[in-house]
Each structure stands twice: as C-alpha cells, then as structure tokens.
C-alpha cells in the first residue's frame, strides 16, 4: 500500500476474513468469533482477540498469522491484544461457520440452552450426525481431539465424529 493511502477498518476486517484457525482450518477466525475489535488510528492497527479456551495452544499461531496477513498487505504498525472478558462463547460463531463445519464433518455447536451444566449424568444433548443427519447419536467423551470438541458416534451410520461443543 502506498504511504498516503489511509487504512480503513473495512479493509482490515476483509484481510482477517482470510486468516484461518490452525486447528480447524475450515474456519476463519471471523467464523469462530474470536476477533473482538479492530481499531485504526493514524495507520496504527490494533486488533483484539479472545481465546476459545484458556489453554488453547493455537492463540500464538493465530496472532502470528494475523500479523503475516497484514504485513502482506503492507500494513506494518500492528498490535494484537488478548482480552478474556466477556468470555468467548460458541454463540459468536457465524452461521456460515456452522455450515462449513458440518460440510467438513464436524457437528456444529447447538444453541445456548445446551451449555454444559455441572450436574453428573445430566441428559445428553441430541447432536446431529454430520454424515447421515440422524439424531440417534451417543456421546463417547466430553473431551476430544482439541479443547473445543467432544467425541460422538452415530448409532445409525456408525460414523464416529467430532462435535464442536457448546461453550
């Protein structure tokens, strides 16, 4: 970008739309809802992101990827902040993101009512199999291949699948 051109906030958002999550690469960081704010002042860009889980090991890589994407567009004055509150929730995932997850073979998160409660053996959520669409599925484990997923299996088509659990 030329020295005199002003950086617009829209431009930054459109660049961020191309930054993917390193662990679920089918989703962009916008789909995930982890970009909380973008500020531009005198061509200084400040981006606020929030982690999905406290221990999410992808946060450092995401910060680096944001920086790389902006640098490629000639934007050099970048600061990336992390904010914990309000805490990230799967409600912030875009509809488009949920569709992409399903097409990728990961069951997308349900709506808010299904957030985890501490009571033991509470009734399980009915999660739709991303392969055959059956609701006749069972929880294998509340913890899966990454912090944000649970393990399920479809009782009809037998497909084992990941569920992006409510949070």
């Amino acid at each position, binding site marked *: 970008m030329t020295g005199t051109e002003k950086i617009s906030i829209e431009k930054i958002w459109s660049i961020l739309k191309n930054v993917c999550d390193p662990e679920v690469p089918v989703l962009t960081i916008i789909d995930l809802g982890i970009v909380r704010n973008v500020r531009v002042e005198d061509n200084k860009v400040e981006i606020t992101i929030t982690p999905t889980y406290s*221990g999410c090991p992808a946060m450092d890589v995401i910060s680096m990827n944001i920086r790389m994407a902006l640098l490629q567009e000639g934007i050099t004055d970048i600061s990336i902040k992390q904010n914990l509150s309000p805490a990230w929730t799967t409600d912030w995932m875009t509809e488009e993101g949920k569709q992409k997850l399903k097409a990728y073979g990961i069951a997308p998160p349900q709506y808010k009512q299904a957030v985890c409660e501490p009571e033991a053996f509470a009734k399980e959520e009915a999660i739709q199999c991303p392969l055959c669409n059956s609701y006749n599925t069972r929880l294998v*484990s509340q913890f899966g291949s990454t912090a944000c997923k649970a*393990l399920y299996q479809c009782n009809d088509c037998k497909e084992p699948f990941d569920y992006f659990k409510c949070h």
Partner: protein
Amino acid sequence: MKENLINYTIHLADNALIMGQRLSEWCGHGPILEQDIALSNIALDYVGQARNLYQYAAELMGGDVTEDSLAYFRNDRDYKNNLLVELPNGDWAQTVLKEFLFSAYQFYLYQQLTQSKDERIAAIAEKSLKEVTYHLKWSSEWVIRLGDGTEESKSRMEKAIDEIWMFTGELFEASEYEKELIDLNSIKDKWNEKIAAVFNEATLNVPENKTWHQTGGKKGVHTEHLGYILAEMQVLPRTYPDATW
C-alpha cells in the same frame, strides 16, 4: 493491599499449574484412549489458567518478572498451592476423587471471583469457570461410577477418600493474603453440599467433620511430593536458562 493481590494471584496460579502438571503425567497412560484424552484436555485447561494468572502477577510485580520466571525459577518454599494438588496421582480412583474435590472447590471459587472488584481476576475467573464446569461434571460422573460400581471399585474409592480427605481442610482455611479477597466460608458451604450430594449418589460416606487436616501449602510448607514435581518441570529451563522454543 497490592502485595496481597500478588500473593493471591500466585496462589491461584500455582494451584492450576501443579494440578495441570500432575494430571499431564497420565498422558499416554490413561486406562482407555478417551479418558487419556479427557485428562490431557483438563490438564491443558489448568495450564492455560495458570498462564493467564502468572501473566497478571508478573505485570503487578513489574521489573524482570515474567510468567516463565514465576513458573520455572521459584523453589518449593515460594510455591503457594494447596497440598491437595501436589499429591501423587495414585490409582484411577485417587485421580478422579482428587479431580472432583478440587474442581468442586474451583467451581464455587471462580463463581465468586467473577464478582471480584479486581477486573482482571474477574475476567480470568469468568473464562475459567466455563472450563471447570466440564471438569466438575466429568469427575462427578466418575466418582459415582466407581463408588456405585463393583466391590473392587467401591473399595478403591473408599481407600482414596481415606488418603485424600485430610488435605481438603486447607482449601477453606484463609491465609493472610486471602482474607480481604475471598470469602472462603460461603464456598465451603456450597462445596460441602456438592460433595454430600455426589457421595450420596455414589453410595459413599462423607468423613466426619472432626477429622484432622494437614495444612501448610498456602504458606509454602509443602509435602515431600512438590520438590519432585518442580524438579521435573523446571530442569530444562534451569539447565539451559537461555533456551527458547
């Protein structure tokens, strides 16, 4: 005032870190793959919480202090974690019981801390509470499954209670730096209720109130187990202080 906040933040961080470090010993050794993955996930949540807390403590302390210097370059006497979290994993019954007792404590603790006057502590608590909810559910189910399971699993749970219970009293005994920052009595009541409800469903007896309790961890007086944890966790950065990833 500020010193209390620093000490308290480090106490919370030490609890999370040592809990996470201990649980990560199960990685690759779980009884079945799904439960191995569950414990690794829980351990990762703890390490994440510890990082958020150490980063805050380091900012409060200023100077050269970093999250890494707090985790890797303090000795056992500087650690302020509860004795409960440094106990060995033992068998599966001891591991799930310890996880249950601790996550029930953390659940009500973080609930209260979301209302903290300190915004940063409140934010970390809000974030962590969502994770701890999963830990509490998972561990409650295992306590019930084993307690109300076979003769063998029940006797293992009873043995685990015998061995671990005396380390729970310390959770609610306020240290100097906690007094102005947290009301441990109200947490204790909710914790007792939760333990009683789950033990009841698990057909396990809650030990009598009068039991003697071991304390000291919050003041830096630890069991012999902590030194070994730190030795393993700190050996690399202490041997090669300039090493980077």
